[in-house]
Every structure is written in structure tokens, then in C-alpha cells.
């Protein structure tokens, strides 16, 4: 093992070191130093990831074992990392996009006091550390360590401005909804251990281990793991925390709630692909939930006025797309979309952050408009991001989305139709956002207009890099009908999905059908794009109270309210009942009643309160003596 994998343990240790330095030194470090430390450690991790990627690309995939985390009876859980095409690709995305967002943050968070600035970078580094553990873990337990770790960082960063109650509410909501998902994940792990005695990926996915599992076991385990994924990756029914999570600083939304953490569920299922392929029922559920989430979130995004909320619902919707891909067995497509989405959604969030920064914290698009001429770089990069997410060729989103839609069509044309409708809605709300923000006349206050400016280089530099990636990122997955052997990503990931591909029967579609499918979705997206551009390019604020479907959409289908009245309130009532009735009146009442019966005895016990310590000691000695006497005479 004479290669870079030998020092791969440095990969998570570096950001951890950054966390420790910034965490402990937050009171003495200047902004320049804490920012530098925060960025450097992630950049070093990125370089290391590049070397690891090259190593893996040369065919050297392996598991590196460090120590036994738990070793009880027959259960052995190792602290080990797995380096293979799937994890090495995610490492690049996490550290690469992560580094750009760290750089961006040095400028975006510059207004914070020194110690909060250091705290922010400490949390961000801790997040990278956890995310790397999640991706590199060679078994479900190490993955779970990272899985809950990223949840913690998300909680800490959403509640970064902890003095504002709404923000900490959002942080709690995120953590708790993730915990509900985590429960599913955990039970799946217990199930696996009970049936197979192991959680190591290499063993679990081996034919010998799978043979120990019945069809019910596989379906149950995969469904429970999927419950975990719905929490982390914000799918129905656990998606409502993600829009609220926009309370955190915008770079955090870009990094955690768009590019990396929320794709953990997709990573986990792609990692477990063989189990999913063997559980058609689960696959059906995954596809349906993914598609339903994609549509639901897209409808809500149509009517949001907060720039970050639109992007948040768009993220939920795109994640739904990825689950659709997983559900129809297009694992490569899902991973592909994770990658392109990381580029364009991070770009869009960072662009939105640049706008919010320039607007002095304003997030309502109704008060924006016409920013095109004030912020040229932000505008241009943002436009590229919008084109990418709308699925316009040859931008990256087109290729990944096309692959998913084609796979959906093969599976069932109905899935494809709904998928295309969602894609059309995506193009519409993105260009509604674009139009309201960058086109038309400025609708904000005079003061804001005076303040408008292009952001500094630390902000525009990451935007430019991400814009380039959002444009060209899709070219590693060009469909076969355009270029033979063009889908380099598929070839790269082939070892990970080999077994799954071997047992699924492939239905090829004709080239004519494929062109037709592509044409329909691109045409739909273009029409929506142009319509939104024209309509919202000259948007004027009209004061009307929303009615009908608009009102329902603006209120997000009232899902939060429904959860509140069906789960939160009943739980609170039940707890109150336990506390006031059963505990105080029931059990304690019984005990106190018994106490009254022995009232006489209690009066005798008053000597306990004599206050003479000598007497107490005397009594204890007496007691001991009595024991000895019993022993002598019995």
C-alpha cells in the first residue's frame, strides 16, 4: 500500500484540526488568521482528494482499516475508510465546492465580530470533517457517525445567530426531523446486525451475506434506510426543515443545504445499490416519494417571494429528481445529478448571497429588480446557473436531468411525463426569480440603491469557478447518441454499480425516441423560460391578497400547520396528561396515600430531624452492632 491512500487519514484530520484551532483560539485569532486556517485546511484536503481520485482512477480501490471501534462478542465494527470511485468522486465535490465556499465566506461573514467569525469557520470545518467521515466510512456505523455529525453542524450553523428565536427554532426543527430519519437508519443497522452480524459494506454487499437475508429483510432494511434518507435529504414527509434552514448564513445554505449534506441520502442509497436493486418494492417507494417531492416542492417554489426560499424548494425538488433516478435504478444518473446540482445550486445560492449582501440583507425579491446593471459578474454567473438548472443544453443540468428522465421513461412513461412537468416548472420559477431580481427597474429603497455594488473578489472568484463548472460539468456524461464513449462518468463508476447492472434487465430505447424525449423536455423548459422572462422581466409590485391556489401555494400547502396539529400538539397534550394526571395524581398520589397510612410511622421518624450529628453516628454504630449481634446469636 505504498501510495497516497496511506496518508488518507489526514483528509478528515485536517479540517478537524482547523475546527480545533479556530474553536479554541476564537478569542485571540484575528479574522485574517481564522479565515486563512479555515480555508487552508480544506484546500489541503482538496489536494489530497485529487490525489486519491487519481489513485482510484488508476484502479486502486481499497478499504483502509484503522482500529476496532466496537468489538463485542461476534460483532466487529471497524473504524475504516473505503476509497472507491463513488467515495472519491464525492470527496472531490465536498472538498472542492467546500473550499470555494470557505473562500466566499471570508468576505461574506466579514461583518461579524472576530470571535463569531472564528466560530463560524470552526463549525464549517467541523462540517467538512463530518461529511468526509460520512463519505469515507467503510461501514454503516462510521457512515452514521458522519451522518449525525453533519446533522449537528447543520443545527449549529442554522442557529448561528442564536439570539434570534426564529432561527433557533429552525435549527431545532432541522435536528429533530433529521433524528426521526436517523431512527430509521439505526433500526436498519440493527436489523442488518441481527441477521448478518456485520455492517461492513464489503461484507454486507457480498453474495454470501445477502444470501442470509430474506426478501422481507431486504425490503425492510432498504425501506428503513430510505426513511433515514428522507430526513437528511429533505424528502416527503420529512422535508419541511430544509426551507426553514435558510435561517443560516447563505454560504451555509450553499454548502450544507444544497451541495453536500442533503445529498448524503443519495450517496447512502447509491452505496447500498445492490440491496435496493434486489428490493423492487422499495425501489417503487423511492421513485414515487422522489417524484412526489419533486412536484410538490416545485409547485411551492412557484409562489415564493424570498429569494432563498425559492432556491430551498428548488433544492428539495432537485433532490426528489435524484431519488426518482435511484428508484428507477439509474444510479449513475443520480450521482451525476448530485454532481451537477452541487455546481449550479452552490452557484445560485452564492449568487443569491452576493445579491443579499449588496441589498444590505434584503431577501424579498419584490424589493429587488434591475440588479443586472449594478452587479455584472453576479448577474452573468447567476444566469448561467439558471440555464444549467433549467436543463438547457449544453449546460450541465441538461445532461444529468436528461439521463434521469430517459431512465424514468424506460421504467414507466407516466414517471417521465410528471418529471417533464416538474422540469418545466423548474425553468419557470428559476426565471421568475431571475427576472424579479436582475431585470426591470429597481424597487428597493433609495438607501439600498445607493448602497448597491458588485461584491469583492473573494465572492466573485468562487462564482466564476462554479459558473464554469455549471457550464462544462455535464460534459463528462454526454449520452451515447451524441458521442460514442462520451459518458466517462458511467465508465468510472461502473465497478460500484456492476452487480446491480448485472441483475437488472436493460431496455434500450431507440435513438428516435431518445431525441424526441430530449426535444420535448427542452422545448417545454424553453417555453417556460421565455414566458417567465417576459412576464417577470417587467415585474411591478401589485398589492392583491392571494386567493385560491395561489394562497395555498404561498402557504406551502399548509404542511407545517398539518404537522403541528397532528403530531406536535397531540404529543404535547399526551405529555401534559402524563405529567399532571398519571404522575402527580396517579402514581405519586398512590405513594402519598400509602404515606398517610403510615403517618404514625412518619411521626416516629421525626428523630431524623433531631439535628444532633452525634445522635446520627450513634444510631449508625448501633445498627452495625445489631448486625453483629444477629450474627453471633443466630
Amino acid at each position, binding site marked *: 500500500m505504498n501510495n497516497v491512500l496511506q496518508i488518507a487519514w489526514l483528509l478528515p484530520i485536517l479540517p478537524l484540526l482547523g475546527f480545533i484551532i479556530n474553536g479554541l483560539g476564537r478569542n485571540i485569532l484575528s479574522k485574517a488568521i481564522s479565515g486563512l486556517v479555515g480555508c487552508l485546511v480544506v484546500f489541503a484536503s482538496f489536494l489530497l482528494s485529487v490525489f486519491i481520485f487519481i489513485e482510484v482512477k488508476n484502479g486502486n480501490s481499497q478499504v483502509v482499516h484503522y482500529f476496532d471501534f*466496537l468489538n463485542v462478542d461476534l460483532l466487529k465494527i471497524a473504524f475504516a475508510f473505503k476509497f472507491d470511485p463513488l467515495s472519491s468522486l464525492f470527496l472531490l465535490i465536498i472538498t472542492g465546492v467546500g473550499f470555494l465556499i470557505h473562500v466566499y465566506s471570508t468576505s461574506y461573514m466579514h461583518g461579524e465580530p472576530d470571535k463569531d467569525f472564528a466560530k463560524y469557520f470552526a463549525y464549517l470545518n467541523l462540517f467538512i470533517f463530518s461529511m468526509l467521515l460520512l463519505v469515507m466510512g467503510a461501514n454503516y456505523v462510521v457512515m452514521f457517525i458522519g451522518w449525525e455529525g453533519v446533522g449537528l453542524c447543520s443545527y449549529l450553523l442554522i442557529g448561528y445567530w442564536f439570539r434570534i428565536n426564529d432561527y433557533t427554532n429552525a435549527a431545532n426543527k432541522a435536528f429533530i426531523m433529521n433524528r426521526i430519519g436517523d431512527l430509521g437508519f439505526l433500526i436498519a443497522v*440493527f436489523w442488518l446486525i441481527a441477521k448478518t452480524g456485520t455492517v461492513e459494506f464489503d461484507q454486507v454487499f457480498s453474495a454470501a451475506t445477502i444470501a442470509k437475508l430474506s426478501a422481507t429483510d431486504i425490503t425492510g432494511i432498504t425501506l428503513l434506510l430510505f426513511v433515514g434518507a428522507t430526513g437528511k435529504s429533505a424528502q416527503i414527509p420529512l422535508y419541511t426543515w430544509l426551507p426553514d434552514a435558510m435561517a443560516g448564513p447563505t454560504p451555509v445554505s450553499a454548502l450544507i443545504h444544497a451541495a453536500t449534506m442533503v445529498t448524503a441520502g443519495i450517496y447512502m442509497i447509491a452505496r447500498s445499490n445492490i440491496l435496493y436493486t434486489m428490493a423492487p418494492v422499495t425501489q417503487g417507494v423511492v421513485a414515487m416519494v422522489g417524484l412526489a417531492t419533486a412536484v410538490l416542492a416545485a409547485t411551492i417554489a412557484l409562489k415564493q417571494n424570498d429569494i432563498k426560499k425559492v432556491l430551498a424548494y428548488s433544492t428539495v425538488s432537485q433532490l426528489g429528481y435524484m431519488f426518482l433516478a435511484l428508484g428507477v435504478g439509474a444510479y449513475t444518473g443520480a450521482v451525476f445529478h448530485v454532481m451537477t446540482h452541487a455546481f449550479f445550486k452552490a452557484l445560485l445560492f452564492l449568487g443569491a448571497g452576493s445579491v443579499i449582501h449588496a441589498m444590505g440583507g434584503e431577501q424579498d425579491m419584490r424589493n429587488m429588480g434591475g440588479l443586472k446593471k449594478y452587479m455584472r459578474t453576479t448577474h452573468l454567473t447567476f444566469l448561467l446557473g439558471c440555464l444549467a438548472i433549467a436543463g438547457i443544453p449544453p449546460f450541465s443540468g441538461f445532461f444529468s436531468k436528461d439521463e434521469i428522465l430517459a431512465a424514468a421513461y424506460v421504467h414507466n412513461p407516466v414517471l417521465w411525463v410528471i418529471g417533464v412537468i416538474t422540469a418545466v416548472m423548474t425553468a419557470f420559477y428559476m426565471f421568475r426569480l431571475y427576472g424579479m431580481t436582475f431585470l426591470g427597474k429597481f424597487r428597493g429603497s433609495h438607501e439600498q440603491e445607493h448602497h448597491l455594488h458588485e461584491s469583492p473578489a473573494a465572492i466573485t472568484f468562487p462564482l466564476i469557478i462554479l459558473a464554469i463548472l455549471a457550464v462544462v460539468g455535464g460534459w463528462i456524461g454526454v449520452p451515447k447518441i451524441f458521442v460514442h464513449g462520451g459518458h466517462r462518468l458511467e465508465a468510472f463508476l461502473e465497478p460500484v454499480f456492476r452487480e446491480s447492472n448485472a441483475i437488472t434487465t436493460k431496455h434500450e430505447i431507440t435513438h428516435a425516441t431518445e431525441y424526441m424525449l430530449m426535444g420535448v423536455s427542452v422545448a417545454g423548459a424553453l417555453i417556460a423560460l421565455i414566458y417567465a422572462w417576459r412576464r417577470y422581466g417587467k415585474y411591478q409590485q401589485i398589492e392583491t391578497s392571494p386567493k385560491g391556489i395561489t394562497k395555498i401555494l404561498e402557504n406551502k400547502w399548509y404542511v407545517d400547520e398539518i404537522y403541528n396539529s397532528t403530531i406536535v400538539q397531540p404529543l404535547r397534550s399526551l405529555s401534559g396528561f402524563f*405529567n399532571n394526571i398519571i404522575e402527580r395524581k396517579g402514581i405519586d398520589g398512590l405513594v402519598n396515600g400509602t404515606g398517610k397510612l403510615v403517618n404514625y410511622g412518619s411521626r416516629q421518624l421525626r428523630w431524623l430531624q433531631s439535628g444532633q450529628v452525634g445522635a446520627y453516628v450513634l444510631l449508625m454504630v448501633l445498627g452495625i452492632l445489631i448486625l453483629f449481634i444477629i450474627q453471633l446469636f443466630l
Partner: protein
Amino acid sequence: MGSYITFPELLIWLPLLAGIICFFAKKEHAAKSIAILFSLILLGISATSLFYTDAKYINWNAVNYFYPNNIGNTFYVALDGTGRLLTFLTALAFPIILLATSKNSYKNPSSFYGLMLLSQAGLMGVFCSMDALLFYFFWELALIPVYFLCSRWGGEKRIQATFKFFVYTFGGSLLMLIGIIYVYLHTPERFFEDGTHAAHSFALNYFYRAQLSAGDQNWLFWLFFAAFAVKMPVFPFHTWQPDTYDQSPTSVTMVLSGVMVKMGLFGVIRWLIPLFPLAAERYSHLVITLAIIGIIYASCIALVQDNLKKLVAYSSIAHIGLMCASLFAMNQISFQGVMLQMFNHGINIIGLWIVIDLIEKKTGVKNISQLSGIAHKAPVLTIMLVIMALANIALPLTNAFPGEFLMFTGLYMFNPWYGAIAAVGIILAAVYTLKMIQRVFYGDSNAITDQVTDISFFQKLVLGIIVCLIFLIGVYPQPVIDLTKDAAVALIGRTK
């Protein structure tokens, strides 16, 4: 060393001696110094004992004194895996508790510290005794000082709380005593090295050989279980606990929740399950059901608690419920999980109490609704609390995760439904813990918390030790797990 004195003897006699010396100390300062000094020496001894686990050191770890004309009871003390871990927890807990509360002043300090150390001696005895009568003696020796400590140094409603505590635990103890005598009368004849013999014996290994029918086991099980269930406590024997925790002086609450609740779990491990394996198996479903009801029930009540101390008390009831359920799952994974978690729970809850005590001293209130925005005023205190709270909800890389993971796994292997339902507790724990953090620490400070200052260097140090332990065991739990392997294997052997 082994030929002169053994580890268990040192662990018992030293705090006893120190306690007696404390009683005669004239000044508060002297009593406090003696208590702290001796508890630190004891910690050193206990820590040393962790390195002498090998079978060849048997003479260092076990001793059996008998005296002429006895009734089959001897002074038989020894350290096995579980005992070693719990004596270490006891030895570790006391200096932390004494140091953390060293700023508090008590009236009549010499007896306060004296009683504390007597209680420690009793606890050490409980964890080392291999003789039933000796076990009972130490059980009471550990409890009686606590009655005095609560009733004399406690809060406003201390009399009421102590009375409830006393009735519960004393009732349980008496039932156990009846059980002990009954089993004793069914043990075989015992011959001693000096040629004498006794009709019966209290020794643990003789108790194991007692002639008990399945019918006998069934009711004896409940006699012993009563004492242990009250001590843990398991639903519905728990209502003494929140009041006692709330009303006792904080240092006593720390002893009670950090170490003393482990007496109940320990009793199940060393006495209840091995003595009555048939009954334990027969009633395992009933006990687990009670324990799981306790988890959900106590977690729900914690959701609506306004009193910080009671919140921690109910949270502890939920955690102990999980440990109790896992014990009765009776497989090696669940046993070792419980043993690891007993240690972790002790450390974590003491840390929580230290923080709550600091908050109460700084603000004068312990109600969540009156507090707000402490994070802004006391960031270091907040960081410490948040880490302990995260350990309380078993976040990975804190010590509670490996413990709870093993317990849930073991419980799941016993019965999937028990494992799955008990695991709902991790969601509820997150809800009440995060809510507490949010209300008390986040937001803007109010009139009560405006004057709060951050903790001193000394307090940082004490809390820092706990935090380090949390992470150390959280990242690398295996050495602690290995310590309990022999005990778990032996226990499995008894149940088969």
C-alpha cells in the same frame, strides 16, 4: 502488595477511614481538604487497579476473611470486570463532585463531608462484595448517609422528599433482606479451612448453588427486583427520584444520580439474574415492557418540565430504563453495552448537574421559563453544557453513542419490536434536550441572566476533564468494553 492488602480492601477502608477522620475535623477547611485529598488518593488506587486485571493478579483483587463460629458469612470482597469499572466510576465521581462543589459552604461541614465519604465506602463495598450479608450491609451503609444528607442539607421541601425516598428504598431493601435470608437457608453446608463448618453460607458462589425450585425463583425474583427497581428506578417505582434530585444538595444529587442508581443495575447483574436465571428469563418480557414504558413516559414528562433539575431527573429515568431493558435482553452485546453505559451515564449526568448548579448559583433560579440568553453572557459554560447535552442524546463520537448503540443492538436482537420502540426515545431525548438549550442559553438575556458571568478557570478545568472523557470514550470505547468482557461472559454462562 497482594499478600498485605488487596485493591477492594483499600477501596473500602480508605473512604471509611477518611470519613471518620472528617467527623472529628474542627474546621470546614480541614474537613474539605481531607475529603478531597483522600478521594484523590482513592482515585489513584482505583485507576491503578484498572491495569491489574489479569488472572495472575488474583491475590491483588480478591480476599476472603472468615472468623471462627460464623454463620457462613465471611468478609469476601473481590473485583471483577463490572465491579472494577463501577468502583472506578465511584472513585472518579467523588473528587469531581467535591472539587466542583468546593465553593459551596455547608453548615456543620465536618459531618457533611464525613457522611459523603461514608456513603462512598458503602458504594465501594456494594460493588466489591461477594457475600450476600456483606452486600446488604454495604447497601445500607451507602444509603443511610444519603438520608441524612438530604434531610439535613437539602432544599425547602427536603423533609417530604427524603421521606418519600426513605419509604421507597427502605421498603425495597427490606424485601431484599427477606429474599437473602430465604436463599441463605437453601444454600448447602459450608466447610472452612480451620475445620469448622456452617450449616449455610452467604457467599455468592454458595448462593449460586442454592436449591431453589422454579416456583421459589419466581417470587424471590420480585423480592430482589423490588430493591433494585426502586434504586434504578424503573417505572412505576420512580416518583421518589425527581423530588429527591430537586431537593437534595447538588453534590448529593450528583452522588445519587451519577453513582448510586448504578447500585440497582449492578444488583441485577451480580445478584438477580445469576441467582434466578429461570425467573429472569420468565419475567424478562414484563420487565422490559415496564422499562420501555418508562423510557417513553419519562421522556414525555421531560418535554413539559420547567424545572431544570426535574428535567434532568426524568431524562435520567429514561436512560436508566433503556439500561434496565437491555439487561433483561440477556445477550453479551446488551450486557456489555449496559456496563459501558453505566460508566458513561455517571460521568455525563454529573457534568450536567455541575452546569445546572452553576446556573442556579449565578442566577438564583432553576426554572427554564425564567432563564434566557446565557450563551451570550457565558460562552464557555454554554459550550460545556452543549457538549454534555449532546452526550446525553448519544450523538456519535460522544461516549454515550457506543453504549446506546450496543444496548439497542442487543435489545433488537432479543426482540426487534422492543429495540425499535425503545429507540423512539432518541427522538424524544433530542426534543427536550434541544428545547432546554434553546430556552436557557439562546435568545437574548433577560433581567435575571443579565449579570451572569462566565465560569472560572478552575471550573473550566473540572468540566474540561468530563468533556475530555466524553470524547475519549466516544472515539475509542474498546478498552472500556474489554474491561467488562469477563463479567459479561460469566453472566451469559449463568443464564444458559
